């Protein structure tokens, strides 16, 4: 889960997006389109960087940004997201889904005449096969959990394929509520009403796949010969650890994309990628914090830089079951006693201060007026004085555990300084090996008193933030915080079909979360990217990393030397 790996894996939009989505409750993002005077070059070729080689480009296994970017260029789901609102709109589906009155049955009808890029017809059975593959325990994809809302998927997916009998596996498979009713219709039966299912139908987990590809390619079906999709591009070459080449799919139902060829290089060293961009060997590049000064001191580069929002929030988690963090007053005191604006300016360099709630700008549910954790040393001290640990020894030398690396060390030391200065408390940095760190935060018994984690949108909906991360049954980060009222609120919102009521319920829950502070919001990930002046027609949203998901068929390059 969580398809963001590093701060550089980012999104393309304009600086004004942050200002544009300061609205209450659900927010919209204005996509920026680089509009140019130049005409598209009919033989236009674009080169971008994918970072390190994807582990897999199997749509039903993909989980990282680069993996999803490849899937989204070659495949297209039943739905896609409107870049303006991030709400699902039909893509391979001909129209909005038909939803039953109990909200538990969703029926999608495909467009007429859809084809795979090899010219063979695309039917609802290919979609059924794709969704089913995600639920299949033998596929073992990281993202199977998003389909657990579909009846029978969780049961089948969590079976032990070594121990379960073939007939038991088969019965579980048959019970899954994913069914192609005919060549053009596919129906999903859900375990409970889920207004966000339209967004899930946009995800890589539901990409159609040809039986022939799986049969012919076997384990290696993701090589170009059998990696056949229905999206704007075709994968025509994959030199492992080197590059992937995509060419336009002339039979794409929206019309042939404007780019002829798109090469994705695999440079995983930031300094080298930066040099390659300066050498015109890359057309687009995410700017790393350490290169920011070089870019700003160069007028040409500076003119090519754009601000982009992200879909992630980093936070300081507290173990709410252990003293002194079992007292909300203590947690809130920590949350209110560091200056987020200064943090972003001095430490993060690229990012936005998390002065609102948990959900970042650009994602539905962003709440800029949530002031519960806003920096206020006086209020923080008052909160601390109210706590039962006001002058107790538990407050001395609280350990702050983090995955040991230079960047996080700087973050933690800065925070340590802030708490000392604004709260008069000494926090002890506790670096541990990153693999060990991952193990620690998984079980409540080992969750440190304080730790740092990030969360990124899987799909644009509050459910993916408020329920997935902080409902007491979460499998994400174990803060041990449990609030029955919060649990009830988010579960009610999950099932609510009226959009306004749903948003209001989530907002109430979100504010409760900030005030109870099982975690202190640290910063929202944003980015800066460099883009050559000849690259046009780029549309991006908070969910999209650099040219990775939406409206890729509109991207073009003008003639340039």
């Amino acid at each position, binding site marked *: *889960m*969580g398809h*963001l*790996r590093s701060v550089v894996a980012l999104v393309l939009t304009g600086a004004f997006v942050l200002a544009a989505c300061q609205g209450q409750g659900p927010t919209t993002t204005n996509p920026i389109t680089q509009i140019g005077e130049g005409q598209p070059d009919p033989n236009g070729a674009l*080169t971008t960087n994918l970072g*390190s*080689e994807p*582990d*897999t*480009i*199997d749509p039903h*296994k993909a*989980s*990282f940004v680069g993996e999803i970017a490849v899937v989204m260029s070659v495949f297209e789901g039943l739905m896609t997201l409107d870049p303006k609102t991030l709400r699902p709109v039909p893509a391979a589906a001909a129209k909005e889904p038909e939803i039953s009155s109990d909200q538990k049955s969703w029926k999608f009808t495909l467009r007429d005449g859809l084809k795979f890029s090899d010219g063979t017809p695309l039917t609802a059975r290919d979609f059924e096969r794709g969704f089913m593959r995600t639920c299949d*325990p*033998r596929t*073992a994809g*990281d993202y199977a*959990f998003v389909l657990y809302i579909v009846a029978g998927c969780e049961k089948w997916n*969590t079976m*032990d*394929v*070594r121990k379960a009998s073939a007939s038991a596996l088969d019965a579980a498979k048959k019970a899954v509520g994913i069914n192609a009713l005919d060549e053009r219709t596919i129906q999903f039966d859900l375990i409970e009403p889920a207004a966000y299912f339209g967004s899930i139908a946009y995800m890589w987990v539901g990409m159609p796949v040809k039986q022939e590809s799986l049969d012919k390619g076997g*384990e*290696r079906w*993701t090589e170009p010969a059998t990696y056949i999709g229905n999206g704007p591009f075709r994968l025509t070459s994959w*030199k*492992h*650890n*080197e*590059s992937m080449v995509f060419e336009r799919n002339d039979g794409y139902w929206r019309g042939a994309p404007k780019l002829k060829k798109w090469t994705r*290089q*695999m*440079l*995983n*060293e930031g*300094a*080298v990628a930066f*040099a*390659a961009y*300066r*050498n015109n*060997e*890359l057309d687009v590049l995410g700017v790393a914090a350490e290169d920011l000064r070089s870019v700003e001191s160069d007028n040409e580069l500076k003119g090519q830089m754009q601000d982009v929002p992200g879909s992630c929030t980093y936070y300081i988690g507290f173990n709410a079951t252990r003293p002194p963090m079992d007292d909300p007053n203590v947690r809130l005191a920590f949350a209110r006693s560091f200056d987020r604006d200064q943090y972003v300016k001095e430490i993060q360099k690229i990012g936005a201060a998390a002065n609102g709630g948990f959900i970042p700008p650009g994602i539905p549910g962003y709440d800029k007026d949530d002031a519960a954790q806003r920096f206020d040393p006086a209020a923080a001290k008052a909160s601390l004085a109210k706590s039962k640990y006001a002058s107790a020894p538990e407050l001395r030398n609280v350990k702050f555990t983090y*995955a040991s690396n230079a960047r996080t060390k700087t973050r933690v030391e800065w925070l340590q300084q802030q708490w000392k200065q604004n709260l008069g408390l000494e926090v002890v940095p506790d670096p541990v*090996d990153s*693999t*060990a*760190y*991952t*193990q620690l*935060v*998984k*079980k409540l018994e080992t969750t440190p008193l304080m730790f740092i*984690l*990030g*969360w*990124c949108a899987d799909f644009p909906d509050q459910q993916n933030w408020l329920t997935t991360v902080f409902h007491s049954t979460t*499998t*994400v980060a174990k803060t041990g915080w449990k609030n029955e009222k919060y649990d009830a609120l988010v579960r009610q919102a999950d099932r609510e079909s009226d959009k306004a009521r749903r948003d209001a319920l989530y907002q109430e829950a979100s504010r409760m979360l900030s005030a109870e502070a099982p975690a202190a919001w640290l910063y929202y990930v944003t980015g800066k990217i460099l883009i050559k002046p000849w690259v046009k027609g780029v549309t991006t949203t908070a969910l999209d990393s650099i040219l990775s998901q939406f409206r890729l068929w509109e991207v073009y390059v003008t003639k340039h030397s």
Partner: protein
Amino acid sequence: MLTYVARRLLLLIPTLFFVALITFGLAHAAPGSPFDKNPDRPLPQATIERLERLYGVDRPVPEQFALYLGNLLRFDLGSSLVKDRSVADIIGSQFPVSAQLGLQALFLALAVALPLGVISALRQNTAVDYGSMALATVGTTIPSFVIAIFAIYVFAVNLKLIPIVGWGTPKHMILPTLILSLGAMAFLTRITRASMLEAIRQDYVRTARGKGLSEQMVIVGHALKNAMIPVATIIGPATAGLITGSFIIETLFSVPGLGREFVVSIVRRDYPVIMGVYLLYAFLIAVANLTVDILYGVLDPRIRVR
């Protein structure tokens, strides 16, 4: 001679077995799981346990090792736990790249180091000697990543002479070959110089001169041949080291080689890849050492292999 080679090759089997045993044990002893992909956002423990069950990583380590050996005997190296590729496929497509780059670097290093070392020894304490030793010192002490970044900046960004991205053409290979060879080149120059200095002071060299041989004959026929023994000793492991790929060079020059794959597999706890690459390395080093041992006999008839 043939029986010697056969015996050494047979000895490879227990060697590889112990390499496999130790590597397997150490790899599994390191904490963490191949399915822990993202430190910022860990997968739920239940998911990881399910994946471990599916891939058999939850079985007791001795049982896993036995299974691994069984597959190995059938030449099945297994599949990567984190990538959709088989280990044979990874090695088959990535190793030739590293091997080619490594051999180029080795030949370049030898082509420069041997003449330079010999000349330095013959012209000891002259400007030539000081110059080559200064170069050798620089080559040994400056880390390759510093030289690499500097070279990319000068030759690619400023002078625009060579491309940064891509692999396969001579233009792409010049810098990585040169920089990869620097370390070996510097070391070999020093060794050649030192053993040549020792050789030219030996009695047999004086004898050779005494019986009236030409200076060229003395140096090439007598001194150099003996001076090559220490050089041959280190060329074995050096070759193995070069052709197995350098993580740094491969990362900085985006070379699709095995060195990078290997380091990443360790970090990711991708056991089958770690094992496959380690066994390949062990095999290469053993073969390199055997070759050197045979070479000794050629260089010095007093050394007889039995």
